[in-house]
């Protein structure tokens, strides 16, 4: 059976599974539609949260980013897991106790302000929509690369699948499909990781192989990696090139942003009790950690494998580099997609892969007769081509395709649900038509999900140039706008609506302005995006942490200068703080 047919079968079976679950878990009330009737088992919710959280970026791109960034890639590892500690200890149990359907509803009710609720809706839509576009792209990429389907058909198929289970099942349907998707994606991620770890280090557990010695007896993986990459002019793998302050702030942003992402927060509204929310966060992080601790091992092993493939001999010798005609099959396959490309600058028929932007390496390169780096590699290759590089059987490759799609679809569904809930519950119901019946609200939310899916699909197909740039900043926006307001709503009784609105707007406006200043996005950047111009050396990726700090300072100051919150609100906060 050809790989193509096999991939169709594996992906097709996974789709049948998702749709089958959708029909079995139809939502019959708004409570089931928004929060799965609050009856989800904590372990099940942990698994659903893990799938909800791990997106196309975690599955397809993260290991590749780490492989090429080395130590600097740690910001994603620590940031995207450490955020769960913040979420579990500071937000989840209290938000569950408060017992609402959406994040803007929490903000609106806690502060007794429709304005605060509406500002929260705006923040939520901006954050979630930029995020969902990335998922749609992910679905399209997997379809077009593994199944040879035109991008547009890939997107339409993905949209239809999400539509079926999101519209029918709402949060209830999404939860159980996410459980299935978690199983698919973790299996698809782990199998190649185990194989490649075993091949190179003799260990079956990738997390152990990461710190082990190589099978060829040349020494520890990380030591050898440091050596071979520095021989080619790259920064040492275990040593970063980013400034410490920037690494620090980016990690803060990714952590607080994770804790402030509405589609993650609402998952904790679906469990029965406060204690379940606490335990559930633990399981969520455990399930996430299975992938997040495998990723850095995959990254290091793949970088090693890649470097050894291209540079099998001694650096600088005439025959040290791989001959282009001798390139392995995976290289040929991925060349067709444009993700790997070769440009023989010195016409020697061999591939030179080195850091040609390193000034101190220039002389050496010239001495070797190298005239520039000849290999361009897209970072997504690391995960997508991993099974082929490791020479794994076809079914593993098919599995990786299904895993990538599962990761993208599960996150897209969670995002689309919070967007539609914000529109149907926080805008339509609370602003325009308060006495809407439950049945009509349910219909309204099904229509908004449909509209949101169509919009996301359309933008996924025609992404405005700035989209890919914005996605990276969704965390900064979440950290600087929603996170502080939610946290203060729980931990400061004195915090009032004036403080909350002023804080959210300050955080959001400051962060957006700083990003636009350096990245332009919708205009020409006003300043060069280099450390000399950055505020305290903090890049636009890390500035959300400063935005969050400003949000806290402004919110606290404004709240002290304006009237105290009413007795009822104070009582509400005090009730939220105790579990019973």
């Amino acid at each position, binding site marked *: 059976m050809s790989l193509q047919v096999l991939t169709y079968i594996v992906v097709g079976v996974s789709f049948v599974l998702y749709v089958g679950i959708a029909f079995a878990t139809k939502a019959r009330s708004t409570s089931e539609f928004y929060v799965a009737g609050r009856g989800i088992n904590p372990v099940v919710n942990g698994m659903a949260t893990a799938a909800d959280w791990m997106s196309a970026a975690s599955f397809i791109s993260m290991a590749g980013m780490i492989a090429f960034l080395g130590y600097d890639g740690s910001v994603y590892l620590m940031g995207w*897991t450490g955020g769960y500690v913040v979420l579990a200890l500071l937000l989840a149990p209290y938000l569950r106790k408060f017992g609402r359907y959406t994040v803007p509803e929490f903000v609106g009710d806690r502060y007794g302000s429709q304005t605060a609720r509406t500002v929260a809706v705006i923040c939520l839509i901006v954050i979630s929509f930029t995020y969902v576009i990335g998922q749609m792209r992910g679905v399209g990429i997997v379809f077009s690369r593994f199944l040879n389907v035109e991008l547009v058909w890939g997107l339409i198929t993905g949209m239809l699948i999400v539509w079926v289970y999101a519209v029918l099942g709402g949060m209830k349907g999404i939860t159980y499909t996410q459980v299935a998707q978690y199983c698919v994606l973790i299996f698809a991620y782990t199998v190649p990781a185990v194989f490649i770890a075993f091949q190179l280090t003799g260990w079956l557990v990738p997390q152990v192989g990461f710190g082990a010695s190589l099978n060829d007896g040349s020494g520890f993986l990380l030591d050898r990696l440091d050596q071979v990459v520095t021989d080619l002019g790259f920064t040492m793998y275990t040593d970063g090139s980013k400034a410490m302050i920037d690494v620090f702030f980016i990690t803060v942003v990714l952590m607080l942003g994770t804790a402030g992402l509405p589609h993650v927060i609402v998952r904790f509204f679906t469990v029965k009790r406060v204690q379940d929310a606490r335990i559930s966060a633990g399981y969520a992080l455990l399930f996430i950690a299975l992938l997040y601790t495998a990723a850095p091992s995959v990254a290091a092993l793949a970088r090693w494998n890649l470097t050894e493939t291209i540079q099998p001999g001694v650096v600088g010798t005439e025959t040290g580099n791989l001959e282009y005609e001798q390139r392995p099959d995976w290289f040929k396959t991925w060349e067709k997609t444009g993700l790997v490309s070769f440009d023989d600058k010195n016409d020697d028929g061999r591939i030179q892969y080195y850091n040609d932007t390193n000034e101190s390496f220039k002389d050496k390169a010239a001495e070797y007769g190298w005239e520039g780096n000849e290999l361009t590699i897209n970072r997504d290759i690391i995960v997508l081509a991993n099974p082929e590089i490791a020479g794994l059987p076809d079914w593993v490759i098919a599995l990786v395709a299904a895993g990538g799609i599962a990761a993208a679809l599960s996150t897209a569904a969670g995002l689309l649900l919070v967007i539609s809930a914000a529109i149907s519950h926080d805008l339509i119901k609370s602003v325009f038509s308060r006495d809407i019946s439950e049945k009509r609200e349910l219909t309204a939310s099904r229509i908004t999900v449909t509209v949101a899916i169509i919009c996301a699909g359309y933008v996924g197909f025609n992404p405005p140039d700035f989209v890919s740039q914005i996605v990276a900043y969704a965390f900064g926006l979440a950290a600087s706008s929603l996170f502080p307001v939610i946290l203060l709503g729980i931990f400061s009784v004195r915090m009032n609506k004036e403080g909350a609105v002023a804080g959210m707007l300050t955080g959001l406006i400051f962060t957006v302005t700083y990003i636009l200043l350096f990245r332009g996005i919708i205009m020409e950047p006003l300043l060069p995006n280099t450390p000399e111009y950055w505020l305290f050396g903090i890049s636009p990726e890390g500035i959300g942490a400063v935005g969050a700090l400003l949000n806290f300072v402004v919110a606290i100051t404004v709240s002290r200068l304006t009237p105290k919150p009413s007795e009822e609100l104070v009582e509400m906060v005090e009730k939220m*703080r105790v579990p019973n």
Partner: protein
Amino acid sequence: MKNPSYWKDNLKLVGILLSVWFVVSFVCGILLVDLLNHVRVGGFKLGFWFAQQGSIFVFVILVFVYAHLAKKLDRKHGVEEQ
């Protein structure tokens, strides 16, 4: 305020656990990474290990420890759920 001693104990618990969270990630993985990299554990430099693997292990443990201790605290103050 309802049950002030419960809230005080709760803040203390969260504060202690969050300081561990801060130390394993921001201190060991970022601020002191160069210093800790002089220490080797098997094939890892210690600072790099905290940044790419150790901190994640500790995070998982922290959340479960929190869930356990918070439940005990609820019981001690008589505020646990039915």
